[in-house]
Structures are given as structure tokens and as C-alpha cells.
């Protein structure tokens, strides 16, 4: 068993394929709720969420021994993570099968990335071991 991050990206603040009308929004919510129920039933869902845009981000760093904060995202980029799921999956094929369902529900491309480790560092357990 491993854990995978399935993330969606917004380009210049816009999530391509996002619902625009109330009807589209309702259909979108219906698909996502059904998908998440399926994830729950199979023990796949670990965590998920939608993020505020990069304008809401703050970067914190240490400079001259003090903590300095700057308004804005870490990377000056047109693309920013808009939301994500963390799922349990046996292997990449299983994760990709879920990714296919997520893409169908969100109508938006997603990136699939395996976790190298999860949980608290003191436990230092590779995912699923």
C-alpha cells in the first residue's frame, strides 16, 4: 500500500473546466460527492481540500536570525495548486484508476505523485509499511 497526492492546478487563478453556471455547479457537486463516497467506502480517502488562491499565501523565512514574512506565494509562477486529494492505493495502476475518476468528476487535469514518506518524522515509516 502507498499514498499518492492527486492535485489540481489553477492557471492564473482560473481552474480550467470549473463549473460556471448554477446548474453546472450542482452537477459538479453531485459528481464529487459520489466520488468521495466511493473513496470512503473503499478506504481510499485520506484527506482532501480546496485551497484559496496564491494571493492569500504568505511566505515565512529566516533572515539575519529573525523570521521574515512576505506576502504572496513561494514560487513566482502562473500555475498554483488549487486543491488536492491524498489517497491510499496499492500501486500506481490503482492510483491512476482513481485519478481517472477524479478527472471525470472535476473535468480538469490532475497530477499524481507518490509520497516518499507520510506521518510524523519520528515514526519515520514509509507509507503503508
Amino acid at each position, binding site marked *: 500500500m*502507498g499514498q499518492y497526492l492527486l492535485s489540481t492546478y489553477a492557471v492564473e487563478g482560473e481552474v480550467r473546466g470549473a463549473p460556471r453556471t448554477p446548474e453546472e455547479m450542482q452537477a459538479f457537486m453531485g459528481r464529487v460527492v459520489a466520488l468521495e463516497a466511493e473513496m470512503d467506502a473503499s478506504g481510499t480517502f485520506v484527506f482532501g481540500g480546496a485551497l484559496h488562491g496564491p494571493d492569500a499565501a504568505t511566505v515565512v523565512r529566516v533572515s539575519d536570525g529573525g523570521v521574515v514574512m512576505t506576502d504572496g506565494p513561494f514560487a513566482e509562477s502562473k500555475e498554483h495548486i488549487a486543491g488536492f486529494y491524498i489517497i491510499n492505493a*496499492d*500501486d*500506481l*495502476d490503482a*492510483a*491512476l484508476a482513481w485519478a481517472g475518476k477524479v478527472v471525470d468528476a472535476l473535468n480538469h487535469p490532475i497530477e*499524481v*505523485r*507518490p509520497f*516518499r514518506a507520510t506521518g510524523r518524522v519520528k515514526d519515520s515509516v514509509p507509507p503503508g509499511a
Partner: protein
Amino acid sequence: MNRTVAAHRETERVFREVYGQAVATLIRVFGDITFAEDAVQDAFVVAIDRWRTGGIPPNPAGWIVTTARNRAIDGLRRSARGRELHEQLEVVASTARGRGDDREEGGPVSDDQLRLIFTCCHPALRIEHQVALTLRLVGGLSVNEVARSFLVSESAMAKRLVRAKYKIRAAKIPYRVPAEADLPERLRSVLSVVYLIYNTGGDDPERASLRSDAIRLARSLAALMPNEPEAAGLLALMLLNESRMPARTAQGTLVLLRDQDRTRWDRTMIEEGHAIVRACVRRDRPGPFQLQAAIQAVHCNADSFEATDWPQIVALYDHLFSFMPTPVVALNRAIAIGETEGPGAALTALDAIAADLDNYHLMHAARGTTLRRLGQRDAAKAAFERAAHLAATEADRRFLAQQIEELVEDGAPSRHRSDGSG
């Protein structure tokens, strides 16, 4: 001395042949590609020494697997880090056995090779990595040989392979033959990788050995998947194409099918290809590779260009187009139409796809040939010039330059006449 050289060559040939089999089985045993590769390399070192005195054993692949496995386990037991790793590997091995996989570990298992091919050609890997992994792990080519095939340095290729293997491990790309539902699509991508390897060898005489590597890979795929006629179809397609290679160039210039010396075609390959195509026809589960092989079989069946069964070829291209509605299939169909219905019909068919294939030299070459047959010399010359501009290989460019030259020579007397009258 000669005897030593011969024995050494024989050992190298056996190594290449058994590398993929041994690595495939040891990946199942140890659960890690790099570890399996190192174990096989280690067993090869032992083999060079033992085989020199004792001769090559009757089952070299089994010998390598057993030696590699035993030495790897011994090595693991000896180091502290190894003992830890050994416990983990035992888990892997015991889960494999738990799944009813309790075969004798003495020799390679053909299922392992299939697993390995599907892992190497996983669509989550970029195509260059799929090709490199397949040649290295399944084909048994050295890193240096794979590097030379793709015109990159050995260190660049080594890095590419490391990156690809890292992704397999990190993302947990599974080591198994895909489920029935995914098999047709996944097999298509495996076959495409093998065909890409063949065509890479076809484009460049420096890399001709890739063609025999691809044929070897297709041969083992066809043997491993006897119920998949497309695997057999790919083997037949490459054999029939390969059979004409001796006649395809003369003094470094491409020779068209029409002008080839058919006595130089390789009859053994043609017979094997024909037998496979006949078996595919009997099985009646057609697919793109089988149909392309059938088209090549019709060509190879004809004693001369004129004797070719062109209506049959057009019918096969129609069938192929129903599987692969691509402009390249339409182009080949248009060329065949030129032989059944004449150049006028061919030009109409070519015009329909000209925009889609504007950057493809063979489309412009086909237009050039068709326009010349219609007597439109200037348009033909322009088409050949565009084709020469786009052509990738020296043999193609020489051929096209020759066509342009012939058109100019044909044109000279007529221009002379018109000069005289005016």
C-alpha cells in the same frame, strides 16, 4: 586463439539472450530492478570464469538465475545493512509465494519476462524511457549499446535509465501483466515500443542492429502471448519488411519497391512472415499490425511490381483505415489507388490529406511521383523539392535529388523546342 575468441563471442551472445530472462525472474524474487541487475552482473562475472573451463551449461539462463540469487542472498546475510534488507526481501519473496507463486526458483519463468515488458512500457513513463528500459532490461543491450542507438553519451543514457527506474520504484509501477480489461491497450503500447525500436533502426544504417533487436523482442512477445494475434502480426510485419532490406538501397540511394531486384529479397524471412499472416487470417481476429503485415505479404508475394495484387492492397488499406483512421494510412492507400485507378484518382486522394501531412516528406514525394505521371512537371519538381527539404535520411535525400534531376533532364528538350519555336 580463434577458439578463445569464438567461445568469448558465444558467451556474450548467451549473456545478451539470458539477461532479460534472469533479470525478470530476480525482480520477482527480490522486488527491485537495480538489485536484480547487480545480481545478474555478478553472476556473469562468475560465469565468464567457470564457463571458460567447464563450457556453457545446458540451461544457461537457469544457471545465471540460481547463481545470482544464491550469491545475492549470501551477500545480504554477510552485512548488517544486508540482514535488514534481507528480512524485507524475504517478506517480498514470501508474499510472492503466498500468492500461489511457489514455483521452483531454478530457472527463468516466461511470465516474469512478460511482467517486465509491461513494466518497462508502462504509459506513466515517457516514451524515450520506455524504449531505453526495454532495450536494456528486456533486450539485454549494454548501457553503451543503448546509448549509441540513440546517439547520446553513455553517461546521459545511464542517467536516463536511473531516472526511469527511480520512477518505477517511487511511484510503485506494478510488476505484473495488466488485467484482462486493460490488456489490449497496454499490449498496444508494448508493441508500439518494439515497432518504434525497429523503425529507429530502419531510418539509419548506423543503427541497423536495432532492427534485429526489435525482431528478437517481437519473437519472444509472440511466443509469450500465443493468444494475442497482434503480437504475431507485429513479428510478421517486421520480418516481411526486413526481407526487402537487401534490395532497398543501392550505393546509398533509396530504391523504390517498383525498381527493386526481387531476387535479393530474403526468402526465409518471407516464408516465415507469410506463414504467420496465414495463421492470423485463419484466426480471424484482425488488428492494425496484422493488417499491415498482410499488406507486406501481398507485396512480397508478387514476382514484379506490375504483378502485385493492387486491388487486394487497397482493400487491406480500407480495412486498416477502419482501425487506424490516420492521414498516414490514408497516404498509403492513396498510393495504392494510383495503381488501381490511375494517377488522377491518387492525386484527388492525396489532396484530401495534403494539409494534415504538410510536414511529412513521404506525402510530398508521393505527390511528386503522381504529378509526374500526370505530366505536371513543374508541380512535380516543387513537390520533390519540398520532400527533399523535409527528408531525414541521406538515402532519402539522394533519391529525391535524383528525381528532381530527372525532371529537369526530361524538361530540357521540351524547353529547347519551345525556345526554337518562339
